[in-house]
């Protein structure tokens, strides 16, 4: 009798500890002297020295020393909150390697209701470069699958729930379900069998002392969503609606009103945090802007009268016979910018800090900042000095379409010598852009807006005004250079006929 009980206890402890570790089928590592030799540990973490390097916030909590990990998880228990909920065991996606914080679920090898053997493959996941087969640590029955193929599953997140034979605790929980009355019992030991929901939604249900089994799920395959729990809470009066009687609220003092509103509003507007990994262009922007922030910038702001520009654009549109071409202001601004750069080549240069050299670029490769669904990208129009306005228009359209379709080639987004950021296309008067290194200047142009100016004879008249903000590398450019350059550009914009005079 004693032997059997102690064996069960050791099994429970062993199983609890094994919950902390991945379900890979691994060669057992030599047990530490701190733990009984009978306990078989399977740790993925006691591996090569490279395993000590961690890259993610989750990975940083996991160390190569499995004993450290055991104690950490054992004391915090966060990753395995109430693992024996409802008699079920949470099977998490375990650490698959340092720096890997999440995996894409590719396919399941089992389905709900299947009996599985120890080490039987449960599913396949993909982490970065590898597909990895996840095997079961236990022999048992799959009760609930919590993710579908293509889902991104974070390390530590529960993959599925299963019942494992031989657990005394499981038996006790099932026996106790009928007599559960206390809210904590309901929330911690509610029957989740067959109810699809994420851990975050189940936590939310527990918070409101709601048995998630009673919530009607409107998600895929009957999955219970956050909205379903909130709706249920409202229906049952667990959650109060925001007060509609404003007059009634006037009798409360301000503090009381705020408290009431905050207490009432808090559950309705409580949102879960969302982690968005930065990839592609967005990730590149982190790097480029961080580097740009180390450069001493100064800004020169001026307003330009765009009346002539408006007339030119209108004239181009009216004489346009090509339905595939759409004339806008930007090509005119780009061409006039190039003309001004010819006179002030310092604005079209790159600075090499190491060699303390400024390289005056022969080509005017003007980058046009574009906001796309994938992030900020700056494709360049090459050799603007050799292009006509029509050619610039067509090239701009090609780059815009490519950016939209995420088809920009490496050549499209490289080789820029100066950048134009038309923030006005979205809105706003002007902006203070950061340099697109190693360029030494960047220009933000605001929206063309109607403004009132006073003539010399005191009469008010409307003009189209565009604000430009030139950001410059103060290590290379001084205010006088930028100001005189801007004056020249302004002259070309306000008097486009000068473009013809100087055009080659």
């Amino acid at each position, binding site marked *: 009798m004693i032997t059997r009980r102690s064996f069960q206890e050791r099994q429970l402890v062993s199983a609890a500890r094994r919950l902390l570790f991945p379900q890979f089928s691994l060669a057992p590592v030599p047990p530490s002297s701190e733990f009984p030799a009978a306990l078989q540990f399977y740790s*993925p973490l006691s591996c090569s020295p490279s395993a000590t390097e961690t890259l993610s916030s989750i990975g940083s909590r996991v160390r190569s020393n499995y004993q450290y990990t055991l104690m950490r998880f054992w004391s915090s228990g966060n990753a395995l909150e109430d693992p024996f909920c409802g008699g079920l065991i949470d099977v998490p996606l375990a650490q698959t390697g340092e720096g890997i914080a999440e995996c894409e679920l590719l396919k399941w090898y089992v389905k709900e209701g299947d009996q599985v053997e120890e080490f039987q493959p449960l599913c396949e996941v*993909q982490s970065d470069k590898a597909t990895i087969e996840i095997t079961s640590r236990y022999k048992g029955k799959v009760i609930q699958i919590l993710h579908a193929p293509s889902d991104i599953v974070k390390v530590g997140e529960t993959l599925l729930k299963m019942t494992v034979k031989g657990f005394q605790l499981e038996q006790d929980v099932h026996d106790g379900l009928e007599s559960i009355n206390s809210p904590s019992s309901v929330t911690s030991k509610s029957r989740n069998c067959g109810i699809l929901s994420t851990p975050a939604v189940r936590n939310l249900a527990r918070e409101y002392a709601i048995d998630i089994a009673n919530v009607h799920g409107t998600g895929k395959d009957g999955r219970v969503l956050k909205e379903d729990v909130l709706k249920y809470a409202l229906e049952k009066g667990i959650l109060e609606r925001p007060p509609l009687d404003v007059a009634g609220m006037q009798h409360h003092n301000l503090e009381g009103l705020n408290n009431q509103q905050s207490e009432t509003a808090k559950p309705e507007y409580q949102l879960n945090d969302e982690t968005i990994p930065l990839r592609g262009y967005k990730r590149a922007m982190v790097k480029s802007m961080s580097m740009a922030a180390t450069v001493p910038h100064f800004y020169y702001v001026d307003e330009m009268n765009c009346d002539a520009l408006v007339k030119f654009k209108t004239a181009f549109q009216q004489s346009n016979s090509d339905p595939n071409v759409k004339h806008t202001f930007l090509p005119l601004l780009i061409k006039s910018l190039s003309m001004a750069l010819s006179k002030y080549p310092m604005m079209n240069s790159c600075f090499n800090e190491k060699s303390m050299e400024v390289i005056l670029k022969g080509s005017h490769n003007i980058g046009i900042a574009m906001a796309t669904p994938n992030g900020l990208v700056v494709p360049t129009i090459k050799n603007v000095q050799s292009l006509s306005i029509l050619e610039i228009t067509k090239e701009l359209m090609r780059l815009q379409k490519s950016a939209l379709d995420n088809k920009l080639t490496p050549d499209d987004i490289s080789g820029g010598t100066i950048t134009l950021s038309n923030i006005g296309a979205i809105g706003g008067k002007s902006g203070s852009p950061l340099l697109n290194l190693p360029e030494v200047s960047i220009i933000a142009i605001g929206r063309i807006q109607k403004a009132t100016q006073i003539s010399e004879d005191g009469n008010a008249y409307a003009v189209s005004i565009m604000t430009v903000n030139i950001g410059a590398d103060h290590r290379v450019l001084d205010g006088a250079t930028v100001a005189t350059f801007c004056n020249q550009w302004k002259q070309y914009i306000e008097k486009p006929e000068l473009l013809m005079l100087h055009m080659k």
Partner: protein
Amino acid sequence: MATLFETRKLGLPLMNLIRLEGLPILKQLHLEEELFRTSKDNWCIINDGTDDPTIVMGISGKPAELLDIQPVLHDEIPVIRRFTGGGTVIVDPGTIFATFICNKEAVPGLQPYPRPIMSWSSLIYEQVFQGIGNFRLCENDYAFGDRKFGGNAQSITKRRWIHHTSFLWDYDARNMSYLRLPKRAPEYRMARDHMEFICRLKDYLPRSTFINKTVEALGTHFSLESVVYEADKDPSAIKFMPTTRQLTREELEEALSATDLENCSAQFASL
């Protein structure tokens, strides 16, 4: 000395070595997958170049995201989805492939996880490139300095793992235009354009030298036994069904249609 060497080799795990030249990449991947899933031996497959340019995506690759489908369809470039993870490559006769398929206990002390396997594989190539360039493993790529010349992908199961590499012996920059910029890029790429990010292996050592040194380095970890691969098998005798497959034209056209129908929400830089 010779006796000591032979004695030491006797203690090494056995690995079958298949050396191929110009085998179509689809056949190579089918062979790899079959050996990976059905064999109990360790294998090394080296394919010195493949035939026509072919796009190879990872297991969860989506053509709409990764490819410029229109020119791919127009130029009839084959698109394959392989059984391992990782990104998208376009391979051709200038690509050299090296694949290791091992039982999990084949390398003593090696834990069957992506990073340890990746690190172990870099040890092999450190021997190959000793004194040549500044070889290193940059995240998941093989690079000289910070310029990539080899990309890796893996698959890990209960008992075995596969780690295969495509080496950029040489490449045609025009072929890169079939591929879109991936959403995910390694940190060490540092927003460099593609041509500044990669380099050609041929600029560092002769082709045959690379392959021979790879075999030689592998021979210090395994006892190699050459195996001849018979490409032409009786189709009726083939019982293994690989998951690696070539996408059909219909699938690519469907992906293209789905892309065209997406709502455009890009803010253009136009007034």
